[in-house]
């Protein structure tokens, strides 16, 4: 276990021990992330963020039967995207119909202790937009599971193929009776922006408690300077690129000159 994660785990444990005030008769979630921000530098090849949590009970908590279930949902920056379908036109395959997918996260990871269908009913999951199959696409969350168009089905399939959308049904691990952990893998091509990590606690098919943490992913150092330069000083950036190219070509000519 890396020091950062150990610290986060200790922080959670300490918060739990402090026994912060909680509504009577309810379980309370205390959660923390292994990092609050992820820095993308020149050696970035993806990373892991660990979500830690503990379930806090007091004396008044009613004894409930059945084990606790935890669902951890990490969602990335919202973007509007387009799904297109190719059709054969005069012998060649070209993009024909399309559907605009309004403001959905470009990264979505759902980790849970058990298959989601065993944790909560479809009605509750639809209302909470819990799980990839309940993600509302171009719709509002409601009591009915969403009805998908072909484009939306394809969108979900492609996002999962690119590992941008993942659902891990044994991704949350209980380390003790009350302490749990979920390791969320962020791929190398992760988008920069603000992410949220939502932790939901279930028991016997009912939602008991929810917490939300935020995670910032950004470029640092050289990578950040280059992208800022390219964005804010685009003309100068273009000219500098051309000068570097000419100098590289000229140097090669000088080094390898034979005449």
């Amino acid at each position, binding site marked *: 276990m890396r020091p950062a994660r150990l610290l986060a785990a200790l922080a959670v444990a300490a918060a739990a021990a402090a026994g912060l005030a909680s509504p009577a008769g309810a379980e309370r979630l205390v959660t923390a992330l292994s990092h609050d921000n992820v820095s*993308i*530098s*020149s*050696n*970035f*090849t*993806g990373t892991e963020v660990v979500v830690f949590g503990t379930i806090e009970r007091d004396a008044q908590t009613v004894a409930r039967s059945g084990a606790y279930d935890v669902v951890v949902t990490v969602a990335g920056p919202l*973007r*509007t*995207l*387009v*799904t*297109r*379908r*190719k059709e*054969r036109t005069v*012998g*060649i*395959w*070209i*993009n024909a119909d*399309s559907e*605009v*997918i309004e403001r959905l996260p*470009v990264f979505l990871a759902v980790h849970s202790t058990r298959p989601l269908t065993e944790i909560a009913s479809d009605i509750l999951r639809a209302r909470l937009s819990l799980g990839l199959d309940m993600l509302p696409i171009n719709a509002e969350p409601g009591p009915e599971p969403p009805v998908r168009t072909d*484009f939306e089905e*394809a*969108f979900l*399939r*492609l996002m999962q193929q690119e590992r*941008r959308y993942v659902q891990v049904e044994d991704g949350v691990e209980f380390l003790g009776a009350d302490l749990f952990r979920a390791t969320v893998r962020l791929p*190398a*091509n992760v*988008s*920069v922006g603000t992410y949220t990590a939502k932790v939901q606690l279930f028991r016997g098919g009912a939602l008991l408690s929810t917490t939300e943490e935020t995670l910032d992913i950004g*470029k640092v150092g*050289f*990578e*950040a300077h*280059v*992208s800022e330069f*390219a964005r804010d000083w*685009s*003309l100068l*950036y*273009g000219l*500098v*690129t*051309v000068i*570097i*190219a*000419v100098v*590289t*070509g*000229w*140097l*090669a*000519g000088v080094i*390898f000159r034979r*005449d």
Partner: protein
Amino acid sequence: MELYLPIAELPMNVFILLGMGAAVGFLSGMFGVGGGFLLTPLLIFSGISPAVAVATVSSQIVASSASGSLAYLRKKAIDLKLAGFLLVSGMAGSAGGVWVYTLLRLTGQLDVVIALCYVTFLGTVGALMLSEALRAIAAQRRGQPLPVRRPGQHGWAQRLPLKVRFRRSRLYISAIPVVVLGVAIGFLGALLGVGGGFIMVPALIYLLKVPTTIVIGTTLLQTLGTMAFATVMQATTNQTVDIVLGLCLMIGGVIGAQFGARVGQRLRGETLRALLGLLVLSVGLRFAVDLVLEPQELYSVTTPAGGGMR
């Protein structure tokens, strides 16, 4: 060694990038072409978005053509006036190309247009080069002298108005075909991420009848100019030029080109042209196959601007 590319926003192995640059550089040095038509598809195939690939390859072409232009400038084998005419018209074409590129991205038809252009141009040029080279080889085998095509002085280009004298090329021709050629090459260069040498060289030799000794240097100089302009245009309008990716490709490319040039000098002209024709033709066929066969995945997801998700 993985290196995170700041604009492409993904990590790539530096040695793979250097190797790719070197392999394409080797071929371009051997055949005397820019190699953009090989490098751009190669980058797209390795997961870099077409937008970044096309824009960054233009900066790589600047490096490879700078190296060659300087060598030809020293030998004074460049018609500066002709290069200037081609360059100015090339810039106009380039601006048009970047504009059409942005428009096609918005409508989701960029990939198919790029593929169709590759099929048309690479297919035609490749087939012509290959058949010409094979005929030359066959004629030589039979021991017959080749029918030498002399640069004629009375082509159709002679009959057009607005004549200009190009002293270095010993030409007195209309400016119209020169400008049209420049605009067309600039347009294609910006749209496809290619220098256009594979079209420019035969066009200068066969259409404008420019002496062969002047053609390569002049083409290199105009490629340098148009691609430098395209790099700046892409940087300002689409912000898709990745300087780190570009530098890796440039270093690999200029080194590969030196070795390619040495191998190229040992091969016979016809063999070289036959091999290049075959290479150009097979890249064109590869694109044709993709267009005609039913793709495994009919759907695709992009941003509304047609780029990759960031």
